[in-house]
């Protein structure tokens, strides 16, 4: 494995971390459109809180996908063709939720507004759940042949472990979304998000523990890397505890950073366990490795230079756009 290959493995992890941190909360917020927000006016505020950002957040996914294609084409080809159905459903979910915000705002009848609100809610739930399921299934190991073609059956990727993984990621996104709403709004929505958090966090804890147990039985992570895997799982739980402490003591930034770091820990856990592989095959001989799945040194070198010169500029205006919309949105009056 060359250092460039290593850098790119890390960079793909960084891009997915960015995606889960950012789209994590806007998936969460998207889920809350229907049940959490009670009136039309409240829904407006909830959607408005991610209005200027959701599109930019999703670009992290597109960048991660493109970067994977550029740096590890074999990984990209195997992963995307292998998890065809899950990715197809993810695309459908992302499409529905993506257009829902703009379309809902322009509907005139209650029924159609409601339709697009459901599209946002269900789309966000499904996207978060399916991403969780996909990555959980991926680390459990899949039937991959010598050519790198994966031919998984339905129950290879839909089983107890992947379902728990899916639910855990969904709940994590949900609390992250609630934490975001606590930061971005004031008034009744802010208070309600806090109240909801108190209920949802215990579920999340249960989910994380169950996930860790299944991780032990379903993957080779604890066998191959007992120390680092344990450390990251512990970090995941600590970040969640910190966030929960932020709920109990009403420290909003602490909660938000805590849930964001929990999501990042999940990505770190996956990438740490994968290393030095990128796809785990049931037959270890067929696993895709960092060293034989990447692009040529020329392309990696080129991509490194371009990424390190463009990404900082992107980050500057990306962060600036959040700063511009820093102000809290007020909740509508109750009797409206």
């Amino acid at each position, binding site marked *: 494995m060359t250092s460039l290959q290593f850098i790119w493995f890390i960079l793909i992890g960084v891009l997915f971390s960015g995606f889960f941190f950012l789209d994590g909360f806007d998936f969460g917020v998207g889920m809350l459109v229907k049940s959490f927000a009670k009136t039309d006016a409240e829904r407006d505020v909830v959607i*408005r809180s991610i209005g200027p950002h959701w599109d930019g957040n999703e670009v992290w996914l597109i960048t991660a996908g493109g970067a994977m294609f550029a740096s590890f084409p074999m990984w990209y080809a195997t992963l995307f063709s292998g998890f065809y159905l899950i990715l197809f459903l993810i695309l459908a979910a992302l499409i529905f939720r993506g257009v829902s915000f703009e379309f809902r*705002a322009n509907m005139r009848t209650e029924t159609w507004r409601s339709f697009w609100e459901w599209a946002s809610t269900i789309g966000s739930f499904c996207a978060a759940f399916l991403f969780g399921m996909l990555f959980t299934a991926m680390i459990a190991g899949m039937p991959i042949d010598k050519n790198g*073609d994966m031919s998984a059956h339905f129950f290879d990727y839909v089983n107890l472990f992947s379902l728990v993984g899916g639910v855990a990621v969904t709940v994590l996104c949900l609390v992250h979304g609630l934490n975001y709403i606590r930061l971005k709004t004031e008034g009744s929505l802010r208070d309600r998000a806090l109240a909801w958090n108190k209920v949802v966090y215990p579920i999340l804890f249960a989910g994380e523990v169950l996930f860790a147990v299944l991780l032990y039985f379903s993957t080779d992570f604890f066998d191959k890397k007992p120390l680092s895997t344990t450390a990251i799982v512990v970090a995941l739980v600590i970040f969640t505890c910190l966030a929960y402490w932020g709920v109990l003591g009403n420290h909003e930034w602490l909660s938000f950073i805590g849930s964001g770091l929990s999501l990042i820990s999940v990505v770190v856990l996956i990438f740490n366990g994968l290393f030095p592989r990128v796809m785990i095959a049931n037959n270890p001989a067929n696993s895709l490795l960092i060293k034989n799945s990447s692009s040529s040194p020329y392309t990696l070198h080129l991509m490194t230079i371009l990424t390190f010169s463009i990404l900082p500029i992107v980050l500057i205006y*990306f962060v600036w756009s959040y700063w511009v919309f820093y102000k809290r949105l007020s909740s509508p009056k109750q009797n409206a």
Partner: protein
Amino acid sequence: MLNLGLDILGLARFQFGMTTVFHFFFVPFSIGLAFVVAVMETMYAIKGDEDYKKMAQFWGKMFLYSFAVGVVTGIIQEFQFGMNWSEYSRFMGDIFGAPLAIEALAAFFMESTFIGMWMFTWDRFNKWVHTLFIWLVMFGSSLSALWILAANSFMQNPLGYIINQQTGHVQMVSFGAVLSNPQLWSEFPHVIFGAFVTASFVIAGCAAWRLLKKDHVTFYRKSLNVALVIGLIFSLGSIASGDIQSRYLINNQPMKFAAMEGLYKDSTNKGEWAAVSGFDTKNHKTTWSVDVPYVLNLLSYHKTTGTVKGMNTINKEMHAKYDKKYGSDINYYVPTNTLFWSFRIMSGAGALFALLAIVGLIFNRKKSQAIMKQRWFLYIMGLCLWLPFIVNTAGWFITEFGRYPWVVYGLLTIADAVSPNVSVASLLTSNIIYFLMFAGMGVVMIVLCHRTLKAGPDNDENTDGYAASDTDLDPYSKGAFNHD
């Protein structure tokens, strides 16, 4: 399983065609609208005329709808290479992935961040800064077109690569060569100009329908004027860049060019050009045609003499060149009818756009009322708002069908590129669901645009992004709907 004669390759190709055509309804529309809206807002910034601000906001609404659909359908495009074309991704990853990643990094972030800023900050920044936002969106989306076309150009005309002897995959040796690919620089201006034409004629068409109803006459006449000036400049630009592109094909992809002109036999020195023609594609013959002498040579070489190779000759040459590697069973003929008629639709429409723009600008002179009296003209203009979408599709039909049977010209056939591990059932399901989703989104788009148009520029209903004065600047709440 029930045998419907469906195979992975056919379904994957259908899916690529369908998703790309649908995606490409919105891409040029968005790029073009960003440009036109940016021009309108710049005029507002310079002149301080509130009408131009209203125009930027009003046509900006359609831009936002189109952008949303363009974004979500774009993700399918990126994922689909890995999902349906995994062998292609392995073969091409070293070259194809880089422009795709840079597209996301350099262009998509810029577009998506600044569109958010533009939408929600009408009253927060001074007008020059706010105008800058829409220019950045426009710049970002044009940049994304550049990168994706760089990737496409490699498929049409591979440059700057070697074949890795161990893996048999292409490997990049010169990024400079990938970027300076002449195919790219003949394709990119044509696509961008076409995008500007698309938006201007949609705006002109919408304005024409409202003028027929004598609604907001000043507003729509001004809009019409901006749209037609842009439309005229860039339809001429499209024609010129299209000419460069097609002449480039003669040497580079002669089969594509011959099919566009319906030439089975080599042309004679007289340069007879078939204006319309019928083909017997099975026996590779022209059955009838209406010929005009010299035009073919004028189009091909800008002079009256010369000859152009016909498809039968080129087919033999291709077999001589590739049979060793790919066997003699491959059919090198491209879908002649599709290319021939697509080319005629595209070039005919290009000329029509230029003509309409000139006539429209004359009728719409400031002091003249001609535009209001020439109702027939407004009807034609109104109908032509659909034409750019057909034309854009025709253009891509030529480009993509014309590289048959290759996915990467001369290096990889379409049949070798498809994912071997995806089932017919998966592909069939996804095809059906995509189709339904696209149909649904298409209908909603048309309904929304129509409704926005009907509501008019003064209507505060659906003030998407433009709620005046409120500190909240909430685009989705203030007066957005009338119940409760």
